[in-house]
C-alpha cells in the first residue's frame, strides 16, 4: 500500500542556489468514492499532508485531497544557504507518518 518514498535532489549546491526537489511515494490514494464489487464504499485512505523541512525550518508543505493521483508526485524548489538535511514527511489518513532524510553539501 503505502511507503517506499523516493526523493531526488542534488547532492551538492552553491550557497544561495535554488534547487529542484522531486518526491514520489507509493500510495493508492483511495478516494473514498469507489465501491467494491459488493457495492460497499471503499473507505478513504490518502496521504493528506506532505511537509519538507530543511534543518528544522519549513520549506514547503501541501494539503492533499483525494483528487491527487495515486502514488502522489510532488515537485518543488528550495533555496539552500548552508549544508544540512532535508526532512520529508508524508501523513497517511490512518495516522502513520512516513519520513525520509536527504543531506546536501553547500559550498
Amino acid at each position, binding site marked *: 500500500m503505502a511507503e517506499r518514498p523516493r526523493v531526488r535532489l542534488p547532492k551538492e549546491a552553491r550557497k544561495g542556489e535554488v534547487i529542484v526537489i522531486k518526491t514520489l511515494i507509493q500510495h493508492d490514494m483511495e*478516494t473514498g468514492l469507489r*465501491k467494491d464489487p459488493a457495492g460497499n464504499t471503499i473507505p478513504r485512505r490518502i496521504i493528506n499532508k506532505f511537509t519538507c523541512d530543511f534543518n528544522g525550518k519549513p520549506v514547503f508543505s*501541501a494539503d492533499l485531497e483525494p*483528487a491527487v493521483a495515486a502514488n502522489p*508526485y*510532488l*515537485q*518543488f*524548489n528550495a533555496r539552500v544557504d548552508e549544508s544540512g538535511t532535508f526532512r520529508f514527511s508524508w501523513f497517511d489518513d490512518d495516522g502513520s507518518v512516513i519520513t525520509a532524510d536527504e543531506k546536501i553539501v553547500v559550498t
Partner: protein
Amino acid sequence: MRKRSRREMLALGGAALAVAGGPWRAAATPAEAAAEIAKFTGGKPAERGKISIDLPEIAENGNTVPLSIVVESPMSADDHVSDIMVVAEANPRPGLAVFHLTPQSGRAEVATRIRMAATQNIVVVAKTSKGQFFTEQKQVKVTIGGCGG
C-alpha cells in the same frame, strides 16, 4: 442457460453503471468551486495573471494528469507567494490541493499529478505574503474520467 447468462450480464452492466454513476451525481459545480475559493481568499477579489498553468489540453486518462504551476514572485522575505490553491470545477469534490510556500522555497513553482472526473476548468489561486490574490484557470478535455469505479 444461455438466457440466464445474458440476464446476468445485463445485471452486471447495470451494477457497473450504477457504480460509475455514483460519483458523477455528487460532482461539484463551478459554484461550489467558487465557494471553496472564497473560503481561501476570505472573499477578497483575486486578480487575473502572474500565474502560468501547465496542463495538457486533452487528457486521455483522467486518473493521472500532470499539472505544473509557476507564479511570478521575487520569493523574498517580505514579498513571496505563501499559498497556492488548486480547485477543480467538476470533480466529486472541488478541493484538489493547497501548497504552502516560504521564502526558503526559492521559486513559486509546483508540479504534481491530479485526477479529473470530466472535462472541466482547473482553477489556481495564489496568495502572497502581502495579502494579494492572483488567479488563473485552464480547461482540460478529459476522455476517460479518473474518479469513479
